[in-house]
């Protein structure tokens, strides 16, 4: 009985935080709630492994992170999302001699204000959606989930060289998309 109350306390005290954490990584309400459920269940089953050398929340988050990465790995395997290395946008951005064809213009906007601007967030979301799926997965894990490159390589089944290529292509496309639709635009 006291055990049950403990599990409830975990949910009450950390549930919302874990949910926000998951949601910021997977962008899907239902999936995020499922991840929290799986993480709490796993934590509960493995509670003897919690040594108390980190806070309970940190420990729960680390379990949740594993669950999320695991889910993404399975999803990518199951749906056979290809490497997308054939999706090479560089010929669009550079001439054969390696010069810019779509000229970047310096953005002077304040990043924090962009983040708070809902209209900007919509444009950003749209630009992210346009990326080939594997590029987007890798990019989001790196820039939004702040995962280290080793973890991403394992989750997405890519070598570190592939990861750098995918990140580069994602940045090129996003940079151009945001410039066109937000930062600079109409004049092009």
């Amino acid at each position, binding site marked *: 009985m006291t*055990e*049950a109350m403990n*599990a*409830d306390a975990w*949910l009450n005290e950390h*549930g*919302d*935080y874990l*949910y*926000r*954490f998951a*949601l*910021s990584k997977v962008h899907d*309400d239902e999936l995020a*709630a499922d991840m*929290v*459920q799986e993480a*709490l*269940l796993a934590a*509960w*089953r493995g509670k003897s492994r919690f040594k108390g050398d980190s806070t309970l929340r940190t420990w729960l988050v680390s379990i949740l992170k594993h669950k999320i990465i695991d889910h993404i790995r399975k999803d990518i395997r199951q749906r056979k999302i290809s490497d997308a290395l054939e999706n090479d946008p*560089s010929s669009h*951005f*550079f001439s054969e*001699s*390696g*010069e*810019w064809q779509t*000229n*970047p*213009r*310096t*953005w002077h*906007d304040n*990043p*924090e204000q*962009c*983040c*708070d601007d809902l209209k900007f*967030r919509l444009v*950003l979301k749209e630009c992210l959606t346009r990326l080939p799926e594997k590029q987007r997965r890798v990019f989001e894990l*790196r*820039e*939004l*989930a*702040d995962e280290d*490159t080793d973890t991403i390589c394992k989750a997405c089944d890519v070598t*570190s060289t592939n*990861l*750098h290529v995918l*990140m*580069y292509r994602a*940045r*090129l496309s*996003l*940079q151009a998309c*945001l*410039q066109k639709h937000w*930062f600079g635009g109409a004049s092009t």
Partner: protein
Amino acid sequence: MKKGCDKISHLVSDAFDRKLSWLERIEVKIHLSMCSLCRSYANNIGVMHDIFSYIRHSDESGSTRLSQASKHKIKQILKEECDDKS
């Protein structure tokens, strides 16, 4: 060998994900000092990187909550797990 903007922009991107070699850093530095387009690009992907880190923090510290229905479901599942054990 002098590298083109395509190669340099790749290195500028890599610098966010790995440590560049000494030689690569020099190449990037020299190229950026002469090429305003690559300077703009480097500035812009830096702005993008900062935007994403703000988004990350605002998402994690926001006020979104688990729905009551999800909470209830999770409670139920945790309870079953506890009951199984006893």
